[in-house]
């Protein structure tokens, strides 16, 4: 029995060790497949087929991180006077070494990395040089080689990368202008450029690729399907380029009748917390719908969605215009309070128009309804009055708020109580909040224009009592080792926050809430009641205010998109 147990333990340990080891050599089935592929490669003359076979062979080994095994397999490829095959061999030799170096670096397998890096780099450039010598721009292999060479220098941040990039672009365009044997290669190049954040160059190649696939005789249905496919892959740049072509085609063919299809596309790209979206592209489509079918082409839900999209795309001024149209056109819509409140916030703090903003808040506060936005609007009226030194007026607003809120809206009531305590104690408005209002409304702070750092929330539409991540990002630029120290002055509706840096909840303060401290550029919070929650941030450095920004989270009973 003991022996059996010991054997079982040994076998289990053996399997555990095997599992924990990085994959390496191919198993017998894979080896058999590899040798069949090599045989087939040696027999094949067709370039496109060779590419596919080499790729299949490569992936077999690369998936097992068996780069040396792949190179051994390559040694059985070619021979004789098949120059074309030899060039493919050179390319894949370079690719294998490139991936091997990356693998070693990513996994910090330094001994092997340090021992081989120089010779492998030389092998990469040497092999690619041979391919470039033996090919023309009509040859797909040359484009693949250019792409690999650029990635190689790009990864190393080598000065040669700029030259290689312009070479890649020029030759890919030349390739596309000719009888491109494999147009998918243009997309491959664009995808790679996009993954390296070379968005402009990627878009340029996507445009060329789209022009190739959207040939005049191509069926519209196929184009739409292709666009949807790219969207589903998360490749929004390409999806948008294909949709552009599709939209133009159906708009020309159908005119206003194309509106329903365009609405579908606009919805697809509209803001969503957990799916690919591009609110500004959605707006472009909305504008086209309006162009085709007039304002009436958009119903109240779509008008709200359009405004909401612009808000999430941070185009607050355009969002304000759309919310205003929505409020004017559909005064009884359930989203009206939200739109009114956002109009107040945008007008006051983004446009620096205190009286205009107050108008929207007043309209809400005068309402007989009791909604989260009505309560928040009264708070804003009190706050603005307090900031202007009209303390008794402010107190009246806060008391009215408490009266109207009853036992609900605890978060906003807590803020009102805090303000009342300040009035009672003849104290100024809490520092963070006052600083935010100062730099948002004082004429001398007009340079605080919300451009120096980003403020984002996720999700933007959250159910109650669920985590919302709020983060700011300031681009430091390259600044040596002297990183400016910032203070983050958070204010507004911050919910019941907990510290994301150590992921431990902190005890609520006397208001039943907590607040991120000035060292935190991000935090996670939860909201306990519905409404539109404005989050304010001012970043301060040793030399003063860097900038201010605000964002809005919408809290609902249940999650969903508008």
């Amino acid at each position, binding site marked *: 029995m003991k022996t059996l147990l010991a054997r079982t333990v040994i076998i289990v340990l053996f399997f555990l060790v095997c599992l924990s080891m990085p994959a390496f050599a191919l198993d017998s089935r894979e080896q058999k497949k590899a040798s069949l592929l090599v045989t087939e490669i040696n027999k094949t003359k067709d370039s496109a087929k060779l590419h596919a076979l080499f790729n299949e062979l490569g992936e077999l080994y690369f998936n097992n991180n068996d780069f040396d095994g792949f190179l051994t397999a390559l040694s059985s490829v070619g021979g004789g006077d098949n120059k074309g095959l030899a060039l493919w061999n050179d390319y894949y030799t370079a690719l294998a070494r490139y991936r091997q170096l990356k693998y070693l*670096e990513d996994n*910090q397998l*330094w001994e092997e*990395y*340090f021992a081989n890096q*120089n010779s492998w*780099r*030389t092998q*990469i*450039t040497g092999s*690619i*040089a041979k391919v*470039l*010598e033996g090919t023309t721009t009509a040859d797909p292999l040359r484009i693949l080689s250019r792409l690999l*060479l650029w990635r*190689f*220098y790009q990864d*190393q*941040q*080598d*000065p*040669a990368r*700029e*030259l*290689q990039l312009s*070479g890649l672009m020029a030759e890919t365009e030349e390739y596309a202008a000719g009888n491109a044997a494999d147009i998918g290669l243009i997309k491959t190049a664009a995808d790679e450029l996009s993954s390296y954040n070379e968005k402009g160059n990627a878009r340029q190649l996507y445009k060329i690729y789209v022009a190739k696939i959207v040939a005049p005789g191509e069926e519209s249905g196929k184009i739409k399907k292709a666009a949807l496919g790219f969207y589903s892959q998360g490749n929004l740049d390409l999806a948008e380029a294909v949709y552009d072509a599709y939209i133009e085609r159906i708009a020309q063919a159908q005119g206003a009748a194309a509106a329903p299809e365009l609405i579908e596309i606009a919805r697809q790209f509209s803001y969503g917390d957990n799916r690919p979206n591009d609110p500004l592209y959605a707006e472009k489509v909305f504008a086209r719908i309006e162009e085709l079918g007039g304002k009436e082409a958009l119903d109240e839900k779509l008008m709200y969605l359009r405004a909401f999209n612009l808000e999430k795309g941070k185009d607050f001024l355009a969002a304000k215009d759309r919310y205003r149209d929505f409020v004017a056109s559909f005064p009884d819509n359930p989203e009206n309070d939200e739109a009114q409140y956002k109009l107040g916030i945008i007008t006051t703090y983004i446009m620096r128009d205190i009286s205009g903003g107050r108008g929207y808040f007043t309209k809400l506060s005068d309402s007989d309804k009791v909604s989260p936005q009505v309560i928040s609007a009264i708070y804003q009226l009190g706050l603005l009055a307090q900031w202007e030194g009209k303390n008794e007026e402010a107190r009246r607003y806060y008391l009215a708020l408490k009266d109207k809120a009853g036992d609900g809206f605890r978060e906003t009531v807590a803020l009102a109580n805090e303000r009342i305590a300040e009035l009672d104690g003849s104290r100024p408005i809490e520092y963070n909040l006052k600083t935010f209002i100062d730099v948002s409304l004082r004429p*001398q702070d007009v*340079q605080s224009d919300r451009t120096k750092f980003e403020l984002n929330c996720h999700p933007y539409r959250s159910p109650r009592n669920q985590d919302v991540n709020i983060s700011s990002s300031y681009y430091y*630029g*390259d*600044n*040596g*080792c*002297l*990183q*400016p120290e910032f203070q983050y002055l958070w204010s507004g509706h911050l919910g019941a926050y907990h510290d994301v*840096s*150590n992921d431990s909840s902190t005890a609520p303060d006397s208001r039943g809430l907590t607040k991120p401290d000035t060292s935190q550029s991000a935090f996670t919070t939860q909201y306990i009641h519905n409404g539109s929650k404005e989050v304010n941030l001012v970043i301060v*450095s*040793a*030399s*003063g205010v860097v900038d201010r920004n605000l964002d809005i989270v919408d809290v609902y009973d249940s999650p969903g998109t508008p």
Partner: protein
Amino acid sequence: MLEVRLKGFRSRKVFLLAASCLALCFFIVGMASRPKPAVWVKKFKGSRYELMAAGKPYVVKGVCYNPIPIGKGQDYDWWSDPNKPWLTDGRLMQEMGVNTVRIYKAGNNPGSVKKVISDMYNIYGIRTVMGHWLGFWEYPCPLYGGKEFQERVKKEVLDMVRLYKDEPGVLMWILGNENNYSCFGQVNPWSTDEIDKETDPAKQNLMRARVYYSFVNELAAEIHKIDPNHPVALGNGELLGLEVARDVSPDIDVVACIIYRGKGFGNIFNSLKSIFDRPILISEFGADSYDAYLGKEDQNMQAFFLQAQWRQIYQNLATTKGGAGNCIGGAMFEWADEWWKHNEYDADGWSRHDAESNWSNPSYYFDIKAANNKNMNEEWFGIVALSKEDESGLDRRIPRKAYYLVREFWKNPVLTDPPRKK
């Protein structure tokens, strides 16, 4: 009569021509025989530059040097340390191939400073780059627009030059370090009444930069008068502000940049050519050897970054084809760990090798997932670690992996040339 006049005219013309030729010969001979400065910058076509020392091309293979022992703070006068740390360090540096040490500020005792410079040079062949902070870390902030402040700093700088200019081991002077950031309000902010009157913050920044770089140029011009034998470098954080320096700092010979961009330097070499056409010395760069994410020392990570950085420096030397050709070398930060750096005010901490990070830099990506993304460990930048174990009165020096890898790179700098255009 006419003939006589013509003859006279001709003979005068011949005489003038002969005199001109003679003068030209004297000028050419004079130029040729005029001794070159001990250290100077040679310019080639295409804004490529090479540093020349003792008549030979000189690639700066440098380290930033500030050997504060364990348990001591930044004010420790290591120059006067009876155990002479520079002798132990110099030997190790020589074995590695280091030819230059960069000093941020000379010690207070000129005799000790001279001794260090001459020992380094005479025993190990290592030259010294002498620096000055230009009052950057003074309290309150440096008032670069104030005459009194300027005069005091100028006196300090020129005194330094007068004291050490004749030391054969001196390579060049570096004025400031990352002082330019103060012009842009990022650190140690300062202003003047005139700047305060300007309401546009962007214009204020440019005004400050103009004041600062004009002052540095004034210092450079004065140094050249006293010491024609050594170049003057402008210490600058990244390239920030150099478009202003181009207009107001003609007397600067070299731009000495402080760069922390992970495994490379980006487009800095070519960018500098278009912004301020001067040779570039990467006067401070490097990587720490502590993985803030895993909470342990990682010498390989540091070695990886340093080797990649040196490769880029070499790719941009004047002698390397394909690169920018304006780089004259670099000085790694730094030779040995400094245990006081995490908190300079906590004397107890000076004996502790602190692993808490103070700043974040995503370019050093291996440990960027550390808490709050703080991955840079200020006390772990040495390519030589210190041990509390005593060795001849000094903390024992333990070369890290970077020491050996950079040594091998210097012996055999393998670069990857792009394939020639077909």
